[in-house]
């Protein structure tokens, strides 16, 4: 859309096209073909029903309608897909990328300016890709006196911990990567791991500003963990279980936020502090200590830290939705799968194709995913708005809020929950 790009000339375009085709052919012949030969040499093809499963047979099976859909379904319900794509890393990374772009555009609109604008046909929608490519192409500079193994390991640990956190969140009934009976306790354990990673990365950089930033981050994260955990005790009291899927199922009639609003507010504020979002972004205060504990990270390591940060944001928002806003519960808006296709097959004129095992995804799953995504997006919107509205808070104000006011409010919340339970209004065997 921008006229800053050079003008189009047909000769240059054809030249670049033929260049690309040439290099693809060269790479395929010199690298791809030997690799395929090696694989076919050394790996034994499995035997399926008496016939050898050659690649040709595999392709035929995928595209034939009778065997294709069950194959797809088995892939969808496998463990690998769960971890890598749907409720796991892929889904979270997609929402995290969307959050970064939405944050920039939302902040820009609030500040009466355009955000990313030139990097895609429509309002800069490919800006993230451009930023990712830029970060990959940069050199990773490590300070000479830094502790190299920990310096390299810290961002990777950060992303791994954030991904572990993401794996505990249930997105739709039955769709969760790790369905633990002590799910909530596992969440607390993982949250307790983040300050250690922060202080490790700050300490290993061996420089003044990351040191100050790391100490501030440690103070902030540790002092807000206690109100975080206490505010969730109200929910646990009312449901009697620590399993996240069962907590969602017990909100089928009402959402917990209606009866525990104080707990929700305490959890929200502690969440902002754990994520180092404004108004609590002291560890990264730009006007005082250049960039806090992120100062020495450059290139793709910085990209990994940002990815971990935004995965953590998605996971916390999803946890808020699961605990207080009813998870995937919501009225059924997805239309049911037409029954004739299951019994008679797809009819297109004179041809009738029988496709067994057709409803790939159940109606509950689609409906649950839709409501979960809508609620998570709404919570993320409310996390992003304070960035444009509040200034940064000071360290002594932060500590007094975390240790005095929020713990008191969390205890009031617990008493309210206990009162509701013993009065027989809520909880197992209650009125609702």
């Amino acid at each position, binding site marked *: 859309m921008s006229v800053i790009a050079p003008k189009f000339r047909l000769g240059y375009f054809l030249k670049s096209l033929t260049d690309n085709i040439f290099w693809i052919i060269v790479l395929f012949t010199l690298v791809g073909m030997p690799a395929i030969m090696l694989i076919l040499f050394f790996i034994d093809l499995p035997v399926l029903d008496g016939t050898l499963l050659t690649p040709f047979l595999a392709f035929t099976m995928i595209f034939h309608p009778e065997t294709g859909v069950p194959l797809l379904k088995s892939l969808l319900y496998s463990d690998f897909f769960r971890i890598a794509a749907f409720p796991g890393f892929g889904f979270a990374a997609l929402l995290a990328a969307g959050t970064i772009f939405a944050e920039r555009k939302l902040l820009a*609109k609030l500040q*009466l300016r*355009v955000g990313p604008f030139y990097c895609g046909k429509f309002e800069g929608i490919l800006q993230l890709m451009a930023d990712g490519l830029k970060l990959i192409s940069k050199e990773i500079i490590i300070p000479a006196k830094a502790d190299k193994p920990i310096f390299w390991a810290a961002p990777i640990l950060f992303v791994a911990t954030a991904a572990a956190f993401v794996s505990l969140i249930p997105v739709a009934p039955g769709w969760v990567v790790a369905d633990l009976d002590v799910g909530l306790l596992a969440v607390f354990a993982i949250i307790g791991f983040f300050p250690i990673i922060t202080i490790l990365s700050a300490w290993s950089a061996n420089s003044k500003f990351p040191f100050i930033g790391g100490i501030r981050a440690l103070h902030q994260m540790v002092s807000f963990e206690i109100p975080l955990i206490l505010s969730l005790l109200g929910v646990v009291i009312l449901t009697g279980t620590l399993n996240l899927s069962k907590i969602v199922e017990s909100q089928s009639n009402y959402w917990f936020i209606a009866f525990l609003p104080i707990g929700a507010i305490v959890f929200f504020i502690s969440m902002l502090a754990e994520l180092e979002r404004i108004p609590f972004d002291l560890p990264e205060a730009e006007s005082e200590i250049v960039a806090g504990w992120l100062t020495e990270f450059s290139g793709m390591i910085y990209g990994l830290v940002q990815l971990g940060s935004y995965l953590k944001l998605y996971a916390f928002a999803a946890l808020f939705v699961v605990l207080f806003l009813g998870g995937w519960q919501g009225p059924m808006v997805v239309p049911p799968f037409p029954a004739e296709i299951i019994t008679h097959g797809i009819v297109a004129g004179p041809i009738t194709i029988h496709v067994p095992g057709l409803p790939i995804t159940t109606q509950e799953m689609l409906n649950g995913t839709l409501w979960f995504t809508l609620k998570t997006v709404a919570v993320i919107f409310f996390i992003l708005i*304070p960035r444009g509205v509040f200034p940064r808070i000071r360290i002594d104000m932060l500590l007094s809020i975390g240790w005095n006011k929020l713990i008191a409010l969390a205890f009031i919340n617990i008493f309210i929950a206990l009162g509701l339970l013993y009065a027989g209004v809520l909880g197992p065997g209650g009125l609702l």
Partner: protein
Amino acid sequence: MGTATGIIRALNSGIKHLAVKRFTLRYPEEKLKFVGDGYQYDPTSGVGIAGYKGRHMLFHDKCTGCQLCAIACEGVAEAIAMVKVPEEWKHNKKSIMPQIDYGKCVFCGLCVDACPFYALYMTNDYELSSFSKEALIYTPSQLQVKPEVKQDVDIVIDKRGATHG
């Protein structure tokens, strides 16, 4: 309680501003419009005429080579030097005219105020970048050319905010 109402009012104001129009000027697709034709000076009345102080424009049929512009610039930026031109004018016996070095000019307009013959004006042209310092020295024949400016955008204020449109 005052704290809570203050926070809610701040959030409310922030969310209300999501409906206000964006103010950015998308240069270089949009360029700002200026009043008039550039800063000019009327020696008889002694008052200038309001306009943008951009690149100068020299009228060869009025310049007499009196050097008053170069003398005025001496105390400020020393950007004007008189050079010989290969033209012959009746009112310019020495055939010298000013050349302006835009690497040094501060665009103050005192040279325009100094000219008594209506020969030196300023125009609306501000895009003067070049690839070398020598290209920034504009000879009298280059200063004669009227710049082509395509400026069409102004600040528009309406109910939903101010934009450049």
